[in-house]
């Protein structure tokens, strides 16, 4: 997978052009770097752990204007802003932050939207500590980076509370029809970009609500659905058509859609296939895939049962297997549904956990227990076929594996029993096989992921592009969006050339 390290020349010039503007240079000089470094990182206000672990409302409350401006003043406005190369979509981070310091929040939001159409979402769910904030020069100088994610969230929320969200100018209609498969972050991004360029875009989505993982997976307490719905409304204003309850490859194939006049396709169907451990007893009642558990609670609103019809099992002692964001979302959900003990069972140690650091901290505050270096080896059921215990084994860390993390090795003779009445398996997802299966011409890789040309995101089928988790396996929201942007620009070129080809 390509990692962007160097900032491309064109972007460097754009950054420099903004950097040299008079207001920027005045603002920069108004406070010395030394003074800026003295300002402490502004804490994100959050709800009390004992209150929030009982409901599904958002944990973080968002920075207030004053705090946001102060946080923005911490940014040194470096001549060589290394943070930008940490952002997969190369947001002009210093410019948006300095616009916050200046108090021009709306312009700041527009600046971000030049590169990232879903800032309210990314500000909340990006793993900033391993992206932009990791490379922030202030981190090198003081150890504590600028809270880039919190600021991104702030400007986006500010814009959302203003009545009229800015609608960019839309190019005159090109007459081309584009089909986007999947309404996750990858698909939503492609749709927005191509609609702005004047193409007629239809999103086909299998579920009854748009958003992909953002709607069925990530819970309300981390990403309020209102934020997502605002983004979807925005796409509709750009003229994007949404067709829900439509499974491409099942309800109609790509070939059928071609006959209906669709000229270019983007596959953003995600990594929807839950992995199980294939151990004894895994089909007992009370053992969920994280996908099922979170879908029941989030998409189907199982937390409001019986007002909503879909039930979800409530456990007193709930074990969640895994150490990523999915596992943390599941375990915190279990706590909120009333579990007395909600436990993470992870085969490596804390430092190897792939989840966002903020989520791990939040979980700890909320009373989540962590059993590191532990893995279940079988489940034991009661007379009704309901799980009642889990046999586990302890692990120790060996040499680093392909992912660079130290490989867990079972410790002989360390088996022990753990009583549980609910277990959630959150050990990863595989690419959704529906589309590759219905298109044998589509070249796929070892894990069932669709193979693409990384420069354009085009697949082995002409005019068919792909991005996000279906290409990368379980990755991140921002990488899915980044793929969407690359694909959209290549698709636009492809469509315009096809017009020329026709004319010639």
């Amino acid at each position, binding site marked *: 997978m390509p990692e962007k390290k160097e900032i491309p020349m064109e972007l460097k010039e754009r950054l420099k052009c903004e950097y040299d503007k008079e207001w920027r240079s005045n603002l920069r000089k108004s406070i010395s770097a030394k003074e800026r470094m003295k300002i402490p990182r502004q804490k994100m206000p959050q709800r009390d752990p004992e209150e929030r672990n009982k409901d599904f409302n958002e944990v973080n409350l968002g920075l207030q204007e004053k705090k946001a401006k102060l946080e923005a003043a911490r940014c040194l406005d470096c001549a060589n802003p290394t943070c930008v190369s940490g952002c997969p979509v190369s947001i002009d981070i210093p410019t948006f932050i300095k616009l916050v310091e200046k108090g021009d929040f709306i312009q700041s939001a527009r600046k971000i939207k030049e590169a990232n159409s879903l800032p309210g979402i990314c500000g909340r769910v990006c793993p900033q500590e391993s992206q932009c904030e990791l490379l922030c020069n202030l981190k090198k100088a003081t150890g504590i980076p600028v809270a880039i994610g919190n600021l991104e969230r702030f400007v986006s929320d500010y814009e959302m509370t203003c009545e009229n969200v800015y609608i960019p100018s839309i190019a005159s209609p090109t007459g081309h029809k584009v089909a986007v498969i999947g309404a996750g972050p990858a698909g939503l991004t492609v749709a927005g970009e191509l609609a702005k360029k004047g193409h007629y875009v239809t999103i086909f989505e299998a579920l009854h609500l748009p958003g992909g993982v953002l709607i069925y997976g990530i819970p309300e307490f981390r990403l309020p659905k209102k934020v997502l719905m605002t983004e979807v409304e925005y796409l509709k204003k750009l003229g994007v058509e949404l067709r829900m309850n439509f499974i491409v490859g099942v309800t109609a194939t790509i070939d059928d859609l071609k006959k209906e006049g669709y000229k270019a396709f983007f596959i953003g169907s995600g990594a929807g296939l839950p992995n199980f451990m294939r151990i004894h007893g895994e*089909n007992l009642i009370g053992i969920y895939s994280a996908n099922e558990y979170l879908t029941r609670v989030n998409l189907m609103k199982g937390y409001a049962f019986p007002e909503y019809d879909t039930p979800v099992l409530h456990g007193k002692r709930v074990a969640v297997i895994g150490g990523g964001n999915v596992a943390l979302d599941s375990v915190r959900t279990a706590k909120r549904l009333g579990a007395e003990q909600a436990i993470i069972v992870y085969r490596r140690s804390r430092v190897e956990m792939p989840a966002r650091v903020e989520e791990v901290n939040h979980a700890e505050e909320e009373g989540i227990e962590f059993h590191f270096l532990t893995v279940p080896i079988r489940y034991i059921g009661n007379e009704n076929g309901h799980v009642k215990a889990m046999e586990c084994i302890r692990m120790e860390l060996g040499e680093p594996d392909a992912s660079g993390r130290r490989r867990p090795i079972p410790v002989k003779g360390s088996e022990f029993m753990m009583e549980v009445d609910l277990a959630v398996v959150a050990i990863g997802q595989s690419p959704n096989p529906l589309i590759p299966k219905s298109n044998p011409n589509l070249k796929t890789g070892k894990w069932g992921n669709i193979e693409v040309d990384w420069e354009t995101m085009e697949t082995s089928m002409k005019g068919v592009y792909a991005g996000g988790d279906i290409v990368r396996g379980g990755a991140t929201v921002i990488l899915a969006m980044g793929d969407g942007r690359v694909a959209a620009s290549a698709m636009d070129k492809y469509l315009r050339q096809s017009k020329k080809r026709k004319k010639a």
Partner: protein
Amino acid sequence: MAKILRRERLVPNLHLLEVHAPEIAKRCKPGQFVIVMPDEFGERIPLTIADWNIEKASVTSVFLVVGTSTHKLSLMKQGDDIPVFVGPLGKPVDINKCGTVLCVGGCYGIGAIYPVARAFKEAGNKVITLLDVKANYLLYWEEKLKSVSDEFHISSRDYYYDCKDFVQHILKKIVKDKKESINQVFAIGCTYLMYACSQATKPYGIKTMVSLNPIMVDGTGMCGACRVSVGGETKFTCVDGPDFDGHLVDWEELFARRKSYFDDEIQSLCYWEKKIFP
């Protein structure tokens, strides 16, 4: 959104639902199902497709009224919109010319077996149909099924028909009485019926396919709610099925898993009833 073209009670507790769904009508094959959600509060439930009509662009299902979602569906009228009606899901039945096929249907499966029997007949097989009802007034689609069958039987628990016996006994009798061999049995209905048919044919080694109906959520392989053990392997009914070899299914596990939400279902129904009949 899909418009309801017809919703009517066939027999007590079993309803027919015909919905305008042009894409599904164009593509669906015997044995496939749709996922339906009656309103924005509802559950996503699977319903086997019982018939379709390409000219009318319609898809028909027969459903048994059990939980809240099916109660809600049973109150919907012609012209109403169903917010979710998605499909056609699952693998179609493997229709081949194998000789004699015995199709068994009970409950909603009397409707669901119809396109299967029709397809086997069209493929040049001899089709024997056996329908199971508790009593005569619960039988529907008799003529429709007769029209695609070479032989027709009923098993019933009352004295109306001359065959008062459980389906598995009648099934055994048909198998034993036949001079020619039965090459395949295909059963759709409640889990118990499918289990009983599989048990009945096992000693004779007749291939017996069943169309399983576990609890589902998304229906596209995303959640794994519908996992079943078949021949010692975990399968997702929605994408690997719904048809499996009845002799290999772990029935005990399936019976248990189907009851996962038994108490919740009752609670949900009581809540809903109180809401609409205060």
